[in-house]
């Protein structure tokens, strides 16, 4: 999936750097590992982030940004292919959007896109 279009620039760069720091904290990895991470880096295929680490990351984001940044709610609205393709940039976009509108708990379902029905195809 693709991140929402947001203005590039120092604010975005700063949020990406913060997200990378949270990823390091959630995984216990070293700075060299974090150097490779960009917005396009996929959590599962590129970083091998597992479900426990993803949960830890969501909690760390809430701790550092406040309750309005609810990445767990965002992830719970995703379907299988969206979770498989989830990138660092997608999370940064969530943080940015949640902080922009500052509404508690609104971060989730609206952004998942591609509503339902995945199980019916085939």
């Amino acid at each position, binding site marked *: 999936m693709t991140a929402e279009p947001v203005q590039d620039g120092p604010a975005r760069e700063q949020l990406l750097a913060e997200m990378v720091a949270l990823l390091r904290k959630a995984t216990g990895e070293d700075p060299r590992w974090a150097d490779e991470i960009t917005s396009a880096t996929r959590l599962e295929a590129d970083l*091998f982030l*597992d479900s426990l680490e993803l949960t830890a990351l969501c909690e760390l984001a809430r701790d550092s940004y406040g309750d309005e940044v609810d990445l767990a709610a965002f992830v719970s609205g995703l*379907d*299988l292919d969206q979770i498989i393709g989830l990138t660092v940039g997608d999370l940064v976009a969530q943080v940015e959007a949640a902080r922009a509108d500052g509404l508690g708990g609104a971060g989730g379902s609206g952004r998942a896109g591609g509503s339902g029905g995945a*199980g019916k195809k*085939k």
Partner: protein
Amino acid sequence: MSRFLFVTLPLAGHINPPAAVATVLATHGHEVAWSGSEARLRPWIGPDAPVYPTGMRLFRGQPDTGFTAVKSLWKGFIVPFTRFTLPSVEKAVREYRPDVVVTDQHALAGGLVAERNGLPWATFCTSTIELGDPFRELPKVDAWIRGHVSALSAEAGLPGGPDPRFSPHLVIAFTSAFFLGDRSYPDHYAMVGPALSARPTAQSFPWDRLDPARRHVLVTVGTMADDVAMDFYDRAVQALRPLGDTLQAIVIAPESLPGTPEHIMLLPRVPQVELMPHLDAVVCHAGLNTVSEALNCGVPLVVAPHTRDQPINGAEVVRIGAGVRLHFHRARPDQMRTAVLTVLTDPGYRAAAGRVRDSFTAAGGAPAAAARLERLAAGL
């Protein structure tokens, strides 16, 4: 005397527990016939047990992890395997005329055919993946899986029928309620603990190489794609390389690694059940069979879950205090060494593993599973 048809998946970890239960049923005078891959079944069930072959569908060790593995498990294996085996399981039921069908949780044809023929049936959970309810917070993923299951039910002529993953009559899980954190399950769920059968084909092992003055660590990642496994074993060997004074390691590696020191034995296979009582720690991928075999002997674990139910099993091991967890792909040799030394040094890990062993013993194992199946066959 009752007649049971066991419907299996062509994977060792899914054949071993049913084989142990079938042995108990046979000693009680019952008959067990098998539906599955004859090549995979024969080493476990002996030359005489009747087999209704499903043929063999290629199933390679899967390199996938995480949600990619969830997708490939269903789209690449469970769904096509169910379609592929449905006719042969139907034929087995018509020819053998069992009183009860007993089916692996992911051999969906077993439950579908039993329902179609109005037979009582039981589910064997040979993994914890459906018991752990891993997708309760991911409703769209859960719906995607349910979509596949209900499509297969409809194809089998049972639209809206019971979920073929869970028998409405009897669900037997080869772990203990204690291991799964004492979640509550319906009354028709029986948590019987591991049903272990020693590998019938005798595996040789260089027993005389085990030095009683040193401690012993088994490193195994079970059935896995060779390149994924060798990457892990390579790091494990680096981790254990400096520890030759105090330990010996047995590494179940499919290939050799150059320059492996004397205290690390690389072997393609070992008699794991027989070896377990001699071990002080097991480093593994947290597959249910290996975890259960280790805990059943009170042996502490270093778990590096890779895929499917392994993250669930690994999390339970850590919660109980019977081991420590590493990241399968990213654990560095120094982290692996620390983890092994931690479980070897702190007696709390072995003590916690012993508590799981006690829960397994109390759960009753293969005889308890057989007793529940006998009750089902008797209409109780």
